[in-house]
């Protein structure tokens, strides 16, 4: 019987140790917010690290309180008998470095200070975020791990397999890429520009102000949401329908349902996300290139030891199938153990958070022999 895991608490690991970043800058100390589901085996080899997408958090499954309206972001995938079966596996989820949901980021206070980092926070990379997750896994005593994630989380999973080949035994990369295309960087750039040019942004020092860069962050989120849906999904959802009216008002307020949808998504987002974090995390994603410093992607994969599963979705145009196939082809060339599925879905990039049934079947059969 599939059921949800119960109430879980987000925990916090305080690392009183300097973190040297890829940029050469350092963080004197940091906190990692994380949740775990299931039990770590005696051999400490049954861990699965799931990494969230751009604006996710450590709360991947279950609820933090009985009264919570929503479950964690990957609740359908994590739990007893689910894709990531907590009867068998010890599932770990952490908030990314630079985030705003418990792990150290630009909204955190500087050590021994009542001043927040703001734009004094160093620019981070996907590689840096892996080091923070590694610290957490070491703390938890994990010896072997399966890494999995969608979108940005997929990049982290990929980087794990490259950086820590001796620990990672399987790697599941969903709706992701080894590097962003110019088009995807462009969308992120528009989002960042919206934030940076918000009159309330104040060079990142808005935490103690009444005025927050809400409009900029909302616009960034709107752009994001356009890229998460595909044309058909949007058309089916909204077409050209008007929002609570039969005819346009001939002004610049919301006429169409799609406008109202984006407006709503933007508004909901500013209540839960930090504008500076959005800048830092999108920058980290833009900068990532799994083949950085080597001649080709297959060269990067040479030292990996994991078994790979790569999945894409037919209507995802943000990280399209071709980009997943690039990873797959490089892994084949590097003579690695790799499987690939392209899942039929009308949901665009969002599919990895919606198409649970097929993903579950594929992941379960892939993990089968590890069980």
């Amino acid at each position, binding site marked *: 019987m599939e059921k949800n895991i119960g109430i879980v608490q987000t925990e916090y690991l305080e690392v009183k140790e300097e973190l040297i970043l890829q940029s050469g800058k350092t963080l004197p100390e940091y906190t990692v917010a994380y949740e775990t589901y299931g039990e770590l085996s005696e051999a400490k080899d049954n861990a699965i690290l799931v990494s969230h997408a751009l604006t996710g958090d450590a709360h991947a499954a279950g609820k933090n309180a009985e009264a919570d309206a929503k479950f964690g972001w990957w609740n359908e995938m994590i739990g007893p008998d689910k894709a990531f079966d907590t009867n068998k596996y010890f599932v770990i989820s952490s908030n990314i470095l630079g985030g705003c949901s418990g792990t150290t980021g630009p909204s955190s206070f500087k050590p021994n200070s009542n001043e927040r980092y703001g734009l004094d926070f160093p620019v981070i990379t996907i590689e840096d975020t892996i080091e923070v997750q590694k610290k957490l896994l070491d703390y938890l005593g994990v010896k072997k791990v399966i890494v999995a994630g969608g979108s940005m989380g997929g990049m982290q999973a990929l980087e794990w397999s490259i950086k820590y080949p001796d620990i990672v035994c399987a790697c599941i990369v969903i709706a992701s890429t080894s590097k962003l295309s110019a088009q995807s960087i462009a969308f992120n750039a528009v989002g960042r520009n919206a934030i940076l040019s918000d009159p309330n942004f104040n060079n990142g020092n808005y935490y103690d102000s009444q005025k927050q860069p809400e409009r900029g962050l909302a616009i960034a989120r709107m752009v994001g949401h356009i890229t998460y849906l595909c044309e058909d999904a949007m058309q089916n959802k909204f077409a050209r329908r008007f929002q609570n009216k039969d005819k346009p008002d001939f002004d610049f307020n919301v006429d169409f349902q799609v406008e109202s949808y984006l407006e709503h998504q933007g508004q909901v987002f500013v209540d839960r996300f930090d504008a500076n974090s959005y800048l830092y995390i999108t920058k980290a994603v833009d900068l990532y290139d799994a083949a950085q410093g080597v001649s080709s992607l297959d060269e990067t994969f040479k030292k990996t030891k994991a078994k790979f599963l790569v999945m894409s979705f037919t209507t995802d145009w943000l990280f399209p199938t071709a980009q997943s196939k690039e990873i797959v*082809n490089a892994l*084949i060339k590097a003579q690695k153990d*790799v*499987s*690939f599925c392209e899942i039929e879905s009308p949901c665009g990039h969002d599919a990895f958070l919606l198409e649970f049934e097929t993903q579950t079947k594929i992941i379960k059969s892939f993990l089968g022999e590890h069980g």
Partner: protein
Amino acid sequence: MDKYGQSNGLRLNYSIITDIIDEGAKVLDLGCGDGTLLAKLVKEKLVKGIGVEINQDSVIASLEKGLSIIQGDIDAGLKEFGDREYDWVLLNQTLQTTEKSDYVIDEMLRVGKKVVVSFPNFAYWKIRFHLFFMGKMPKSKVLPFSWYDTPNIHLLTVNDFYDFCKKREIKILKSVFMTKANVKTNFVTRFFSNFFAEEVIFVISK
């Protein structure tokens, strides 16, 4: 031929191919279906194998067997695979369903040192009789579909394949002719094999 005597059609085909493949070889199985053959090769011949399959349910069934499998369309070519990267490339019971069969064979010969290709022989005497007497598209256990829903869009005969190989300078290293549950090794001439074989397995190389 006796050792295959008791098995049914598909199992027979799998057993013959398993015997052909050498131990520990690198194998690419195109249109591998639910992975039964590839899993057998991994188990019995310890091959390092990878499958390509277009149907998602089949992909999942292959994954369940612990196989490496790439969902994809072999008609789109084998671009992800380098020249002569595999000891063996298999195309079992799939050639007649491919859209660009000549291109698929070219690609297999590029990627594999040796290629195993099997297909139902459309010149099998029962099929000829079916068409001759009934005047309808032949159906059999090997070819169970109706004309309107068949995936077998490029049916061919043993003789067609010989001609094809000759024209393209493809070497035929081995041929196995079968009826439902038997291997026929006693065909004297090509005419007899084309007439009496229901299914055929060829090993070819460039």
